[in-house]
């Protein structure tokens, strides 16, 4: 676009700037109706795409009335149990004209089926739909934890969605390979690039090898993909071109920009050399970004406004590696759920960047910059080496099953936390410059975050039950049987899922069929083998205290680390588990998705001295109190319970009143101190011993 012959140096350019990226806000809560109202008001404010947050039961495939769903309905997103919920969610939003990103993975095929069915009910056509299903299961095993099925079955589902959409919903992005969550789980930029490329390669390789053997009859008829044999080159290029990425953007925004450039170049290189693709358009890396949420601080939270803007700059600054869509978190996410006003500020940040600044008026600002090019090359070289390493061990699926990637992430994350503890890494307001006046933004207390109405869960369950009773039971049973038959026969899952959506099958019923056929899966935690970092003086001191207390207790201090509910963000729990082990404790870590009953059973059977619960989904009010009550009922009331999570101060006080001994929030970054307090709490509880 430049040079601009008609613009003088001292006046505004008259040629039109480049079209901006899509503005989205990751949102959804309480109910389909409440979320629909939120979407419509966001669109009215100039948002250009939607990004749907589903609640954890929907993400993991449970209906709102399932026991595991208790306390989680409508918490981190919107509950969608059936087609009527989906229709309500998009009421008065014509899907043919919308671009919708759905953060959905294990149940991606189902939510896409509901989306297609809803569009058809609106009188639209699947062929015109645009949007994205996240559909990247590998990172769920590594970070986010909302997986449902074993890796092999998950890869099959992913590739079936790809082959279905390439043939039938040509503008859909069937998979968003996520490096976002890898960074959240601790990945360095090099790991972020290498592991996400490995994920994409494992998918492409399996598609190329299978040649879409599972294409259903109507797919074959469409002729876009061959029913068997190797994919034709043109098809492979088309599939390659439909794969998009979802990146994270941290605060080191110069390096982050270089990361985006490195990924763009490496992706093109992989397309050319590994898959023989020559079409320039198909080789272009397309990616969306959510800037880093976990790096947002609870201390002096207004600082996050600046962090978010700088992080947004990192992924938009370089024209040749610019994000296609961007969603910014709200400044107060470390405190709780953001209000509409907080989300509006994030949208305005994007609009200022795109419309007020001159960012979009120039070609790439960094072409020819030695500094940027050197850093980009360094990242590329290191990422290529790590990628080859993962491929040599059999690719991403093998590196999930042998826990290699997970261990590497846990190690990097541990190193990062150490650096914050030691002060080697500066986090303003957290480990440096902590002096502050009272912030008027947080003085308001609870009113500065959004509270999900506790009656939302009950209302959702009532409406689900009403839906079940009004649908045609015979049609539902037939649809379920046909779905199961199709999966067992190796046919593409999409057509029978769309039929099931229309027949009134629920999210839980659909997933139940898949659980029956594929089995359930528990991914390796990666903590057992992760190597301990060098001990700091504070660590040695804690270790001595653990030894002394263990002597007094007669047994080594034993702790249960548990994650109640459906929240799969296990990074915090894993860091605590590793730290406790290194402090000399015996640690029982049971992994994610446990009911309060199961946690109490573990605590009793294992004879632990203390229970640590981690919960980030906001359902602490229900689940933690339930664990404490059940401990008392089981005669284990003397065993102290501590809790960590995103817990507003009012809730923390309520938990303490219910019997919780300590509550930790994201501002408690000093793990050595937490370990010391756990020793205190156990010593206190065993004073008589």
């Amino acid at each position: 676009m430049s040079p601009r012959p008609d613009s003088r140096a001292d006046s505004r350019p008259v040629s039109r700037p480049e079209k901006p990226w899509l503005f989205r806000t990751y949102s959804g809560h309480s109910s389909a109706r409440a979320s629909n109202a939120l979407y419509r008001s966001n669109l009215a404010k100039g948002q250009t795409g939607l990004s749907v947050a589903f609640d954890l039961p929907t993400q993991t495939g449970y209906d709102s009335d399932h026991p595991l769903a208790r306390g989680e309905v409508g918490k981190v997103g919107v509950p969608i149990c059936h087609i009527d919920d989906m229709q309500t969610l998009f009421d008065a939003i014509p899907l043919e004209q919308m671009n919708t990103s759905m953060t959905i993975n294990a149940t991606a095929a189902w939510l896409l089926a509901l989306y297609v069915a809803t569009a058809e009910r609106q009188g639209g056509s699947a062929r015109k739909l645009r949007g994205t299903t996240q559909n990247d299961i590998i990172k769920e095993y590594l970070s986010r934890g909302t997986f449902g099925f074993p890796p092999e079955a998950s890869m099959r589902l992913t590739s079936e969605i790809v082959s279905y959409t390439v043939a039938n919903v040509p503008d859909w992005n069937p998979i968003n390979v996520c490096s976002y969550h890898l960074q959240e789980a601790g990945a360095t930029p090099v790991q972020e690039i290498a592991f996400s490329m490995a994920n994409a390669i494992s998918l492409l390789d399996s598609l190329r090898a299978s040649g879409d053997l599972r294409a259903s009859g109507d797919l074959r008829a469409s002729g876009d993909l061959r029913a068997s044999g190797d994919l034709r080159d043109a098809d492979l290029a088309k599939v390659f071109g439909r794969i998009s990425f979802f990146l994270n953007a941290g605060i080191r925004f110069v390096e982050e920009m270089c990361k985006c450039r490195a990924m763009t170049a490496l992706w093109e290189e992989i397309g050319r050399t590994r898959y023989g693709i020559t079409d320039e358009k198909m080789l272009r890396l397309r990616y969306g970004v959510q800037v880093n949420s976990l790096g947002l601080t609870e201390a002096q939270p207004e600082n996050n406004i600046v962090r978010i803007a700088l992080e947004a700059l990192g992924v938009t600054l370089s024209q040749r590696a610019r994000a296609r869509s961007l969603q910014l978190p709200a400044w107060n996410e470390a405190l709780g759920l953001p209000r509409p006003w907080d989300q509006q500020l994030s949208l305005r940040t994007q609009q200022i960047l795109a419309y007020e600044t001159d960012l979009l008026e120039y070609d790439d600002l960094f072409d020819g910059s030695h500094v940027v090019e050197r850093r980009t090359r360094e990242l590329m070289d290191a990422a290529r080496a790590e990628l080859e390493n993962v491929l040599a061990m059999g690719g991403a699926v093998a590196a999930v099953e042998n826990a290699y990637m997970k261990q590497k992430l846990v190690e990097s994350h541990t190193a990062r936390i150490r650096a914050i503890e030691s002060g080697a890494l500066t986090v303003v307001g957290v480990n440096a410059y902590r002096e502050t006046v009272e912030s008027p933004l947080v003085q308001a207390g609870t009113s500065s975050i959004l509270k999900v109405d506790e009656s939302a869960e009950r209302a959702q369950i009532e409406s689900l039950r009403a839906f079940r009773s009004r649908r045609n039971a015979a049609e539902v049973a037939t649809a379920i049987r046909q779905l199961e038959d199709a999966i067992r026969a190796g046919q593409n899952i999409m057509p029978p899922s769309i039929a099931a959506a229309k027949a009134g099958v629920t999210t839980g019923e659909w997933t139940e069929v898949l659980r029956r056929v594929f089995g359930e899966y528990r991914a390796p935690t990666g903590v057992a083998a992760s190597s301990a970092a060098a001990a700091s003086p504070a660590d040695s001191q804690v270790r001595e205290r653990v030894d002394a207390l263990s002597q007094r207790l007669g047994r080594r201090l034993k702790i249960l680390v548990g994650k109640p509910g459906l929240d799969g963000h296990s990074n915090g729990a894993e860091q605590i588990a590793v730290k406790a082990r290194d402090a000399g404790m015996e640690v029982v870590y049971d992994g994610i998705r446990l009911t309060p009953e199961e946690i109490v059973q573990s605590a009793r059977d294992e004879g632990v001295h203390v229970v640590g619960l981690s919960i980030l989904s906001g359902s602490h009010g229900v689940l933690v109190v339930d664990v404490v009550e059940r401990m008392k009922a089981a005669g284990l009331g003397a065993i102290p319970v501590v809790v960590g999570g995103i817990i507003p101060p009012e809730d923390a006080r309520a938990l303490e009143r219910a019997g919780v001994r300590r509550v930790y929030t994201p501002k408690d970054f000093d793990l050595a101190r937490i370990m010391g307090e756990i020793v205190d709490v156990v010593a206190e509880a065993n004073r008589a011993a």
Partner: protein
Amino acid sequence: MSEGAESPSELAARVKAGDRGAVARALNLVDDRRSARRADALVLLDALEGQGRGRRIGLTGAPGAGKSTLLDALATGLRARGRTVGILAVDPSSRKSGGALLGDRFRMGASARDAGVFFRSLAARDQLGGLAEVAGASVEVLAAAFDVVFVETVGVGQSEASVADFVDTLVFVAQPAAGDLLQFMKAGILEWPDVFFVNKSDLEGLATRTATELRAGLDLGRGEDPADRPPVLSGSARDGVGIDALIDALDAHHAKQDRTGEFRRRREAGRLARIESALVRRYGRFGLARLGGRPALEAFVAAHPARSAEGVIDALGARFEAGFAAKSEP
């Protein structure tokens, strides 16, 4: 309920009644190193001695052989047959710090969360020998409360021998791999187990070959009547294949032990071996000789049939210490 609020004999009665909270407290007690608690532990163990209804089964094999998955499948299979299950998983991952991440419960999967399955993990801690004492006592507690008790250990070689001292049946879980036979023979694994299970039979060719090699090795290495040689089964714990056959083989082994009297013989021999090795660990060969050696040990055990192994160890130890103290004083 605080641990001090009930007497050890009350606790024993509750354990025998299958009270899971009591089982947990009893396991805490036998693991407790404080001398004041040690006396209570001995009363508890004496009260449980000879009462254990549960069959004790050891499960061993190299890391990665799929022991936890197999345990999960076995527990599920036994629950389906209406039997309760107690599991003691010995985790070798402890560190210099003394800390350990006990991951077996997680690897077990769903059955560890079944209300009819009791699962306790135990860190290997400082030394294998000390562990054997706690593990032996823990198995006594579990066997008093549950129908079937499993002890899971990682090991190739040495540790099988000590696990064999406190179980009725030892199962070796083998993973298909080329060139296994030599490894098995070198490690001395062929000597102890009563049942071999070649896991991951989905790796077909390799699994068949490993099973064949094991059978050949047993023909060479174990002198018994071919009919008495341990069975070599194969299956896939992950897919639930061959689990029923394995449970049947375990039951058959128990039935045979009952029929031949091997059951009693092995329990007695195991008990003696545990007592002997504990005394040697504490007082050395010299100390054991001062007590009159193995014959005196056998005589003492025969004279006190109702005492637990731990009780015998402490009684003989006290005798040695008293004698030593008396002789060294002027």
